[in-house]
């Protein structure tokens, strides 16, 4: 009972000194240079030797080495290499066996001799000497260490250290601060130790008014303007300094309205449909008496900015979508069946368990709601306001999905990254709380961003050639949430970043200069994590290149919704020519050869008008035409067409791995072909004399991960290391614990699906 109830947590600093390493106790065996690789600002907190990392079900595969806890990660350093060394992306910040502390969801210590186990929180005591440490990770990994040969005291201490340091008491104790702060010392250049705060990148961060200006121009939103009244965050604590509002609203009006909205959040412009209909997000108005008046003023301003002065449609997200707790509960259930339950057990009821987790249902709900909004913009040509209580969670998902479906620019790599900056980071999604980086409040934790990535994946899965990036990119982006150095995922809003930066800078005597905040790298600075070669895994060989969107002679050429011309369509295949424009001529000689369904589809436009809703009709119409991958993309929403994102959710499960198989084997072939095309194109350029790039430079410049070999036309066999988990590997990453013959899942089946600190802290075995 002594661990229940929240205690005031000590700071890192006060906790640091008493811990000491136990190296002296085990000097007899020469352990040579088992040293953790440290990043700038990273310090070793504690370590234990002669630790065994469990790799497979057989203990002979286990690795021996040293377990180190730093202020950034749990590191395991070993002389041995993995038994079956599979390919892995080399992470620049993390070694093969490293887990960032921010990725650790739960620290479970076990003493299997005494039959005890305990979940460790911050600053707790442990009454037994652990024989085993199990780390449950936020990315679904389960890592297990054994201390059979380690000194009992040092084992205990390293466990306590890991538990403590994975529960930082204050955001400034997140490693990113030390890491970035370190880089200010002794550096004078603009680029601080390689941290490029977005300057050289093509991804707009939307932290300056020029990025918004460009977005206004790009989307042709001439009736909208950048508003600067929140500079210094004087109006709203959770809004960015720059955002976009209707031109008809003066700063003075906005200041007046601000107080009526939750957290003074003036409604934010997200995007303009080519037809001129705007997508706007808005929080609830706190004062019911003012509600109608204020809403009316806002709506009429939005209407005024519409070319046809159309009325605004309000979409209430809270009413139509699951809340953040629902989504969190769904993920926990999904995690349970994916990685915690014994494989064979979960196999039996896989489909119904999957259904009862409701994760897929939520993915579908969000996609469907986004389609409804698209219908309003695309077909009804009205501006849409996304209404959500705080406008910081569900709106982020919906506004992004709408833009992904409508705007091909958002499906390019930089467009997608800009979209996330705009709708998540700048709009003030509480990444710090939703990720629960401080593990303070479980109720605030919710995998909204992961849900969004899953929705994007569903679109990607249905239209793989419409996106510039791959599913590996999406998975790695999701994982990056747990590497706590990126400006993208560390804060609840831009203001928090600025404030924390100032505090930290003053406490560390860092001179910020002209910067508002510490220069945390955005996650988009991918070179922080991966080599250029590894980054090519993000490039989709299928991608159908972009149509230039640019400003010409002052008039905006936006993306168009042409539905023909380019036959990249996926529905085109197999359709008789006459069907391509939606009609079926009686003289079409090909007409009969094909299916009933095709005819049905073309025919559908005639029937069912009486029973279906206009938006259903819109969707049906959409699917009766060939899809232009550079135009509108609507997902197929039948439950049979949505699938589990296997690469993300099942990548660690050894039993679910397809050796030398999976979509990656097709990707390999496509990649090689695309590389060959790139090579030919560069050769052509050479012949034309346009570029003087010598031939051999091609290999370095290639955007493809898998490259053509010296003998073209002969596709090489896919490398042996490819598997459905590629580029991830289950080896050593999923050790389901079996404790004293009691699978942990059985032990957990009672109260909660996922280990909860409160319930388990008091359990005594």
């Amino acid at each position, binding site marked *: 009972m002594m661990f229940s109830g929240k205690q005031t947590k000590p700071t890192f600093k006060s906790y640091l000194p008493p811990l000491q390493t136990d190296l002296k106790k085990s000097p007899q065996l020469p352990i040579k240079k088992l040293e953790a690789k440290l990043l700038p600002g990273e310090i070793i907190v504690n370590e234990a030797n002669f630790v065994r990392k469990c790799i497979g079900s057989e203990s002979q595969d286990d690795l021996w080495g040293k377990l180190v806890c730093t202020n950034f990660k749990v590191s395991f350093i070993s002389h041995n290499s993995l038994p079956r060394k599979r390919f892995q992306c080399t992470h620049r910040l993390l070694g093969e066996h490293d887990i960032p502390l921010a990725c650790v969801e739960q620290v479970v210590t076990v003493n299997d001799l005494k039959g005890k186990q305990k979940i460790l929180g911050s600053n707790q005591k442990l009454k037994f000497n652990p024989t085993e440490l199990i780390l449950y990770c936020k990315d679904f990994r389960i890592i297990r260490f054994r201390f059979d040969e380690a000194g009992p005291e040092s084992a205990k201490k390293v466990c306590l250290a890991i538990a403590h340091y994975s529960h930082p008491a204050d955001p400034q104790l997140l490693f990113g601060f030390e890491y970035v702060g370190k880089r200010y010392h002794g550096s004078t250049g603009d680029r601080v130790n390689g941290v490029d705060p977005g300057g050289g990148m093509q991804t707009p961060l939307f932290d300056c008014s020029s990025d918004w200006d460009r977005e206004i121009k790009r989307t042709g939103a001439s009736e909208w303007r950048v508003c600067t009244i929140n500079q210094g965050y004087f109006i709203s604590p959770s809004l960015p300094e720059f955002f976009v509002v209707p031109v008809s609203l003066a700063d003075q009006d906005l200041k007046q309205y601000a107080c009526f909205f939750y957290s003074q959040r003036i409604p934010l412009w997200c995007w303009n449909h080519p037809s001129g209909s705007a997508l706007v997000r808005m929080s609830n108005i706190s004062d019911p008496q003012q509600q109608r008046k204020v809403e009316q003023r806002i709506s009429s301003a939005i209407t005024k900015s519409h070319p046809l002065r159309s009325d605004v449609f309000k979409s209430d997200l809270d009413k139509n979508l699951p809340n953040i707790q629902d989504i969190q509960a769904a993920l926990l259930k999904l995690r349970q069946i994916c990685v915690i339950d014994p494989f064979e057990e979960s196999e039996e009821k896989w489909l119904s368990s999957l259904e009862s987790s409701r994760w897929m249902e939520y993915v579908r709900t969000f996609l469907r709601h986004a389609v409804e909004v698209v219908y309003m913009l695309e077909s009804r040509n009205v501006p849409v306001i996304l209404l959500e209580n705080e406008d910081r969670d569900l709106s982020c998902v919906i506004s992004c999905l709408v833009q992904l479906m409508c705007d091909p620019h958002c499906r390019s790599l930089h467009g997608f990254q800009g979209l996330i900056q705009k709708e998540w980071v700048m709009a003030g999604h509480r990444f710090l709380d939703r990720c629960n980086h401080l593990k303070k409040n479980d109720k605030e934790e919710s995998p909204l961003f992961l849900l969004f990535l899953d929705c994007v994946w569903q679109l990607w899965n249905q239209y793989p050639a419409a996106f510039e990036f791959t599913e590996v990119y999406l998975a790695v982006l999701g994982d990056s949430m747990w590497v706590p150095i990126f400006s993208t995922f560390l804060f609840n809003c831009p203001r928090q970043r600025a404030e924390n930066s100032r505090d930290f800078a003053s406490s560390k005597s860092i001179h910020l200069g002209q910067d508002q905040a510490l220069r945390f790298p955005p996650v988009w600075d991918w070179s922080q994590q991966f080599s250029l070669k590894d980054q090519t895994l993000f490039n989709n060989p299928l991608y159908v290149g972009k149509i230039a969107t640019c400003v010409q002679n002052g008039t905006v050429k936006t993306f168009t919704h042409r539905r023909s011309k380019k*036959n990249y369509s996926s529905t085109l295949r197999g359709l008789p020519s006459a069907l391509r424009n939606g*009609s079926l001529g009686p003289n079409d000689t090909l007409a009969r050869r094909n299916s009933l369904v095709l005819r049905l589809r*073309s025919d559908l436009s005639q029937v069912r008008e009486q029973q279906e809703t206009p938006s259903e009709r819109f969707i049906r119409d959409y699917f009766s035409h060939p899809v232009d991958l550079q135009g509108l993309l609507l997902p197929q929403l039948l439950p049979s067409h949505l699938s589990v994102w296997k690469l993300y959710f099942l990548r660690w499960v050894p039993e679910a791995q397809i050796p030398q198989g999976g979509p990656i084997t097709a990707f390999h072939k496509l990649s090689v072909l695309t590389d060959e095309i790139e090579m030919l194109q560069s050769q052509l350029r050479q012949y034309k004399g346009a570029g003087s790039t010598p031939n051999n430079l091609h290999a370095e410049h290639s955007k493809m991960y898998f490259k053509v070999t010296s003998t073209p036309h002969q596709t090489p066999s896919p490398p042996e290391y490819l598997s459905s988990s590629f580029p991830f590997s289950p080896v050593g990453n999923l050790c389901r614990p079996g404790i004293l013959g009691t699978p942990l899942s059985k032990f957990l089946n009672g109260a909660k699906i996922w280990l909860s600190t409160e319930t388990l802290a008091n359990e005594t075995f």
Partner: protein
Amino acid sequence: MEESGSVDSVESLCSSTTTRSDRSSGPRVSDTELRSKGKATERIYKDPSKGELPLLPEELVQDSAKDVTYICPFLGPVRGSLTVTNYRLFFRSTDREPVFQLDLPLGVLSRVEKIGAATSRGDVSYGLVCKDMRNLRFVHKEPEDSLKKSVFEVLMKFAFPVSNNMSLFAFEYKQVFPENGWKVYDPLAEYKRQGLPNESWRISKVNDHYELCDSYPAALFVPVTITDEELRRVSSFRAKGRIPVLSWIHPESQAAVVRASQTMVGQNGRRCKEDEKLLQAIMDANAQSHKLFIFDARPSVNAAANKMKGGGFESEDAYQNAELVFLDIHNIHVMRESLRKLKEVVYPNIEDSHWLSNIESTHWLEHIKLILAGALRIADKVESGKTSVVVHCSDGWDRTPQLTSLALIMLDSHYRTIRGFQILLEKEWLSFGHRFQQRVGHGDKNHTDADRSPIFLQFIDCVWQMTRQFPAAFEFNEYFLITILDHLYSCLFGTFLCNSEQQRLKEEVPKHTVSLWSFVNSQLEEFVNPLYVHYPSHVLFPTVGIRHLQLWVTYYIRWNPRMRPQEPVHQRYKELLAKRAELQKRVEELQREAANRTATSSSERPGSPTRSITPVQTFV
């Protein structure tokens, strides 16, 4: 018109599927060939409702009726005219533009029946239950003249020719294709490819006239140490005389896949020393292993229950060094029931909220999993354990070919090519007597026949699952598999007719009918998977977890108009291939041009190729 019409007649054979994917692009070489053939064939046109119905050779209109209403589950009632030929049902709408058409071979019908009595308006409703996962409903006015037959009575007659003492349309159809598909499979050539006969295995002529076993092929491979006389004795100990014979042999380890039927052990535990000797000889033929695995496809309870009926399984006492494994695959009745449930779940509409648990309740994927898992164990024993295996179920003509042919696909990359797959079907399914006539019930109106079962569909589903897991390992695409299934029912080709090689020979099926492979191999490019990579000695070990199995949506749900055909990757790959070809052409042109220039300007620096390339001014 003549020309294009004839192309159409060939095209219309393509299965009625939504998944036609790779068709719109790429050169269709065979078109011209088909066209030239088509010219020779006689064309018959009938104009039932202004819409021309291009008929196949020897296809004749039997009856047609105006004023028929098709009750479409997706569109509601559609009025139009219905035509019945000796091959197909053809419905064409008259009340809407664009025209709605239904065109299906009568062979897919498993049941046609009047639903309810005539209404006051004289309307009668007819329900058509199809073998390809759909049901159709029509409403038609009863003819006022009671002597005149309704079009549906004509339909019933031609839908079930076997029950009406008529011949199947396959025996009428006389289309000529550039290739003769009946020549695809030559048993001796196939065994020769496997290196047979060799010092351990010989071909036996004991079944040359199907005397030993009427459901087995003539060519049988057995261990050299076993005489024909001994084989005869073995045949009396194995159900239906289906003795253990070789299916496949590993080119390196010589581990063999042997198939058989159950032993007739019975309740008294009968033994047969020749059978024991034969299995020992099979084991001895493989020097790599001193063990033999016997895979009994059935659940052990079912296998034991068979002893009551005289059957049973090998006891490990009698067969030393043999290990018996039960694979827990259920019988044809369970499978039929499972598919029936599946049809309820997927047709016509799918329930959004309980989709996954509904699928689970059909157990269809569970059965698929067990079959694949069984095949995987077999392949693993042969490949990794270098051990010979004997596979059987009860009669050895349902679960056994499922298992052996799937294991062979895993083990031998040849069977993953289009022609190799055809050979596999001809060998493991057709020559070894899978009872297609019984299981499908071609032209037979007895839809409740307990011998019907979707065993072959299940096998194709398993193959499809493997193609999903290994998208680059198969030469054929999904359309190939769907085409096979569509013509399993269509009765247009002779391939899937009859129950055994002997019957097909007796009926002279190859002489009187066209092989499906004639059609397929005459337009191969339609069926090619562009992502295919041929790697010769590559064994596939699929993952059989339910997580990686999925419902074959593009087959089972293809009638749903909300279905969107997918397979964009293939399409995109073909586009990229075309782009590459174009670029290569241009580069070669420029290279030639550059070479000419350097040749004329008496090259000073023949060294590096990059240096020799001068900017080509003429290039626009």
